[in-house]
């Protein structure tokens, strides 16, 4: 049995929305600030004197549940001093397509050498490009990701995240 009145009511709901302010955002142009503790692309850090904080201990690789970190260490020599410790990471690679951004690597790191940043736009056309090398991880992210004001949230920012 047709119910013309119900049909009109239904369209009424639809037409009402036209006069409301949209809650969607035009994503690539407009970026929503991420939550301050959001875990995005990793970043490797240096000391102020230029030495890398990472000593290539592989604890991040051990902690990683997705097994996406590969570290090959080598020894610092007087003419080739890379890190502050005896050893440094000769190869440091993160496979971003495998990473689940759990943040265990920054928890495991004894030197706060690796932290997770806020960048999430890390899609690529080729899988190979998803493997981030040490140079890419040491460099600051190219794109800036807006971050929401930490004051808006009552969750504390972990100490290792403060400088990220």
């Amino acid at each position, binding site marked *: 049995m047709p119910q013309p009145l119900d049909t009109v009511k239904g369209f009424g709901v639809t037409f009402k929305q036209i006069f409301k302010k949209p809650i969607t955002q035009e994503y690539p142009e407009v970026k929503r600030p991420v939550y301050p503790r959001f875990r995005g692309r990793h970043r490797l850090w240096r000391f102020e004197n230029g030495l890398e904080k990472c000593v290539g201990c592989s604890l991040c*690789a*051990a902690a990683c549940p997705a097994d996406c970190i590969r570290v090959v260490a080598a020894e610092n020599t007087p003419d080739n001093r890379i890190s502050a410790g005896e*050893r440094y990471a000769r190869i440091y690679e993160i496979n971003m397509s495998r990473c689940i951004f759990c943040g265990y690597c920054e928890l495991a790191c004894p030197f706060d050498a690796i932290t997770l940043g806020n960048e999430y736009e890390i899609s690529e056309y080729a899988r190979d490009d998803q493997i981030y090398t040490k140079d890419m991880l040491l460099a600051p992210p190219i794109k800036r990701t807006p971050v929401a004001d930490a004051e808006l949230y009552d969750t504390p920012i972990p100490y290792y995240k403060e400088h990220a």
Partner: protein
Amino acid sequence: MSVPELVTVSVDGREVQVPKGTGLVETALAAGIEIPVFCYEPRLGPAIGACRMCLVEVEGMPPKPQAACTLTAQDGMVVKTALTSQLARNAQNATLEFILVNHPLDCPVCDKGGECPLQDLTFRFGPGRTRMTFPKRTFDKPIPISPTISLDRERCILCYRCTRFSESVAEDGELVAVNRGAQSMIATFEDEPYRGRFSGNVTELCPVGALLPTTYRFEARPWEIQTVPTVCGLCPVGCNVNVTTREGKVKRVLSRNHPDVDGGWICDKGRFAFGHLGARDRIVDPLRRQRRRGLQPAGWDEAVDEAERLLRAAQGRIVTALSGSETVEQAYGLAKLMRTGLGAHTAVLPEEISDAVDGFRLPLSAIAGAELIVVVGDDPVEERAPIVDLWLRAARRNGAEVVTTGVGGGAKACRQLAGEDDELGRRLRESDRPVLIWSGSGGAGGAHVAACAERLGFGSKPDSGVFYLPLTPNGRGVVEAWSAASDDEGPDPDPIGLLFVSGDEAASDPSVRSLAERADAVIATTMFQGSAVGWADLVLPGTSYLERDGTFVNLEGRLQRLRRAVVPPTPDELAWISQLAGRFGVEVSPYPSVVFGELSERIFGGLPYGEVGERAALRGREPTGELRAPAPAATPKGRGLRLVRYRPLFSGAAVERVPELAFQRPAAEVQLSPQDARRLRIKAGDEVDVRSNGTSRRLRARIDKGLVAGVARIADEHAEELQATVEVARA
């Protein structure tokens, strides 16, 4: 042996019965309770209680914590470990806090991190945080105490395991503790490198990261590695080893205690020579000689075609030279191809092997319990089979007498021993646990020494034994496999149509090289270019023992399983032997398990491949028929000293390619007996000229009390072209 008396001990309220005299650490383990230790290691001799980690409370003893490792189980003993005793708990906690006072927080950069007893025990028994606020003691680090071992004194906890190994196992005494008390530190003599043959074992004994192998420095972490249990294929002992691999590369070799074979020790050759896998001149593609251009890389199809062409062209006039480092399966596959496929029965076998010694078979560990040991032969035991030397030292410590005889003429010495009126022979007859060891050349595969043992009545004494130390790692297995492939015999070909050289050892053998001069063509299978360049027409790449699956037979006659630790850069020998055999209508499987199954029926009593086992058992004694010693080779006559050559442990194609082991290579020395030295007015360290028919070598003199007069002993690589009789004079 009598059954030991059992005593009842209570550990944390659990009653256990153990033989009287068992250490308290083992007693607790029998009760399922762990007493933590750092310095305790029964293989190093009596416990010293240096680390104080094993403190427990024992009722009836003074009311202070007792070091469990120094106590033995007594009847009615009541022991309380840290599980139930607050006293012991506090004591262990305090011990760890003291140890950690000066231990640096190096764990992230320390190679031991992750497999470190100090880390583990601190987690379980130690304090959670430090109260130490002063700067820690520092030293220069790391100090290379040899090219293969680095020492980090900051990390050292002075457990004295390493010095005890050096003093009472290897007995080299090169690693010692200097100074006293808190100033104690581990050191070698005046910056001399730690040159012992077994030095690498201290890196495995060290419970912290103080002594570490330089070859493993920063190479891998314990959670990134795989471990492959296999056996070492560098000498006839066949020590059981665990090979650590990471990302398809061998990173280190550790011992895998087989109490009957190696007792958990391995020599430095076995531990550090793995570097040859990545040698610069490693052959990875087949090489084919092309006119005017020398050896050029060829594809595998082309190489197998060429090999087939050469084998056909030789029309059965083929000689096969074997190295003795092939696996049993490879040797059998090759034998089947040559013997059944081509009718070529002539082979240059790596060495003579006699099954006569199998009638007096004993595990190597039995040497340590022997009463009287006679070593017959020219070669120092530690150069030929280094672990046997450790067993001999253990025997000496246990009160056995070790006599070396027959330097310069082993066969004659054997005959003399078996004689009625020989003093040493009489004592061997009377002894309950006598052992005879042949260490030298010309032993006829042990036939001499076995015949001697037979006449000395070893047959009726189950604790007596005979060991023949072969020259090659798997010579026994290779010879057995070669003879198992066919019963036919054939005439020696002359002229030789094709010489097939298998392995680097055969390729560097001068007698094989001289055969090559008479051969129309040469096919060589070698790992390294250096072994094949200049004389081979076709080179097929070889693989190393770490890259093969199969079985090895060691000097006791123990069949042991070899496992592939890493994938070789080239197909292994069995793969192309199988292909090549197919072209001659012979069926050889490319899988070692299948080949072994076929061979096992014939010579290993049908033992399945899967049951060779990780800790292989020793076959029982095999009765031998009437034993007759072959006639001894004629000793060369002439003026001057008889030259005795020996092959040093640190020599050969693999060791030459490992730069870390260069310092262990034999010095250019001639060893002389004290009598000869006095007669020739030569002092130790003098430069001498060793001359024979026109060739001369300048060497340094060393006086060896174990040598008999009339003999000069020189390492193979320094003897070079010297003849059998040499004249020695001061330069």
